[in-house]
């Protein structure tokens, strides 16, 4: 099982440092990683990731420059491009596929794109090998979850984790804020999901300490570490040491 799914914001602290960070993560045995494409209005993110996105934009991390920086990288975990729809819409599906082909990106997680809204855009990306990762939140009941997983299906065990998993949002609200997340209801939700799907699950939003990571792994799911890692990067902490402390 994949032990940790880290998130970093492209361009924070700098685009120049990105290839080195990805190589370091891969050397540590990180299989997959979420990479944030900075957006001006990240409505599902808390203050830490919003500030990181704004810093990255200030430093010139435009979507195209991020994708150029990723182009040709081989020493990298499988990447899930985590972003909002508008920057991708402005690039356009055909051009986006061309740009992604050069990069280690395997899938997309577009926070403000329900599967109903841009079916052609999404179908084109999926057929080119870039599936959208489904999100399941505390407000998603079982019937709805079944539909979401069916409409954004698991491509199967011969595909990497990065393309297969579903993202379980641990709590109401946005990324990063508000202290420790109560994992008891998450355990129940994961168990309920297990009654009808065997696809890999990642759990994120509000997880930061090693104990929470271990608790999620005990559910048979992969913990996501996002805001806490982005804060550590901003403090210029060592990526390797930080990730090792969370990998269990």
């Amino acid at each position, binding site marked *: 099982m994949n032990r940790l799914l880290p998130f970093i914001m492209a361009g924070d602290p700098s685009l120049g440092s990105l290839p080195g960070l990805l190589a370091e993560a891969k050397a540590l045995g990180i299989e997959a990683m979420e990479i944030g494409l900075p957006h001006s*209005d990240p*409505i599902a993110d808390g203050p830490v990731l919003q500030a990181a996105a704004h810093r990255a934009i200030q430093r010139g991390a435009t*979507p195209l420059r991020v994708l150029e920086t990723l182009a040709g990288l081989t020493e990298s975990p499988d990447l899930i491009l985590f972003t909002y729809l*508008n920057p991708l*819409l*402005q690039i356009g599906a055909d051009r986006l596929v061309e740009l992604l082909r050069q990069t280690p990106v395997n899938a997309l997680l577009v926070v403000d794109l329900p599967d109903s809204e841009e079916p052609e855009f999404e179908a084109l990306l999926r057929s080119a090998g870039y599936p959208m990762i489904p999100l399941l939140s505390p*407000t998603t009941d079982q019937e709805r979850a079944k539909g979401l997983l069916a409409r954004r299906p698991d491509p199967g065990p011969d595909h990497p984790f990065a393309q297969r998993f579903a993202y379980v*949002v641990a709590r*109401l*609200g946005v990324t990063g804020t508000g202290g420790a997340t109560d994992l008891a209801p998450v355990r129940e939700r994961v168990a309920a999901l297990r009654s009808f799907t065997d696809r890999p699950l990642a759990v994120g939003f509000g997880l930061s300490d090693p104990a929470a990571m271990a608790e999620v792994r005990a559910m048979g799911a992969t913990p996501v570490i996002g805001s806490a890692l982005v804060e550590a990067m901003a403090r210029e902490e060592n990526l390797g040491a930080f990730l090792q402390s969370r990998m269990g």
Partner: protein
Amino acid sequence: MRTTEFQLPTRFGAGGLGGCYAPETLMQPLLDLEDAFRKALADRSFQAELKGELRHFVGRPTPLTSAPRLAARLGLQGLFLKREDLTHTGAHKINNALAQALLARRMGKTQIIAETGAGQHGVAAAAACARLGLKCTVYMGVTDMARQAPNVARMRLFGTEVVPVEAGQGTLKEAVNEALRAWAARCDKAHYILGSALGPHPFPTLVRTFQTVIGEEARAQILEQTGSLPDAVIACAGGGSNGLGLLVPFLGDTLHRFAVEAGGHGPALGEHAARLDGGRMGVLHGCKTLLLQDQHGHTAETASISAGLDYPALGPELAALALDEKIEVLRASDDQALEAATWLCQSEGILPALESSHALALLPELAKRGFSTALLGLSGRGDKDLSTYQSKLGI
């Protein structure tokens, strides 16, 4: 049994604007809201309650005031003002805020979240919540809090918590970001009263539905007072709640419909909030519409002397009506709006909000185009803008 799909149309116009581009956490709350909205509309007791509150609390119907001295000054034969400035709390925003607060109570929600730009929607939500016994939190950008300070004080007097939003430019866009985040965190207990005809479905439809009372009254009133319809109907447009509220009931009529955006202080991106010419199709705050953005799809900065018009996206239904050529969208600059406010003050003894002044500023243009009678939506009163008028006009 919860609904699993939207029942109402989610898109507007030939271009399919609007939609529901929301994070998964908000999808079921939005489905539940649409369900409650449809059921409330079909429920006579809800309609009666809303009508009663609009009459006895808001002060509807608002007058349609003939403005003959201003008409003569600007070269029009007749000018009629729909007086939303005379509603309780001083702007059209109360129509929607009160209706949504009633809807929230019906849904069993005990808390209200709202965003505000000029503070008029915030004040309206605060007043409605005080009246209905709901706990209200309003998110407001720090720039707007400074330039609309009287409205901050009014909200606090009504028992509302006003949360300053520091990010970005500290205006309406950032306030909406923060309100959406707050709703995602508390959607089990709270209803989000969005104040403009934007956001994810069903908000644009819901807000427009609760605001068309403006145009319905105005249409009946002008027919009663003059026996005919005007040549032109004109309203200012930020997100579009006032613009749609006045103009939609006139869509079936043979006359010209105008919406006026904020031209700010220049034509370059970042100097105005004129989305029709300056915007490209994009997605912000849950809907697809005309959006001021840079080449990378990041939302552009905006500028306007009027906080209520200072927003980078045109509401999707209004944008669709503009693109389908059912409404013509014009712009007025900061300076034009300031000057137009003085015309109304001097000629008719009415102090308009800076937002409404943008519509007034285009009246000479209507006269120039040969229209002889116009009906103008006076969306709000200008008391909140006194300090801006004082400093800019040197009075």
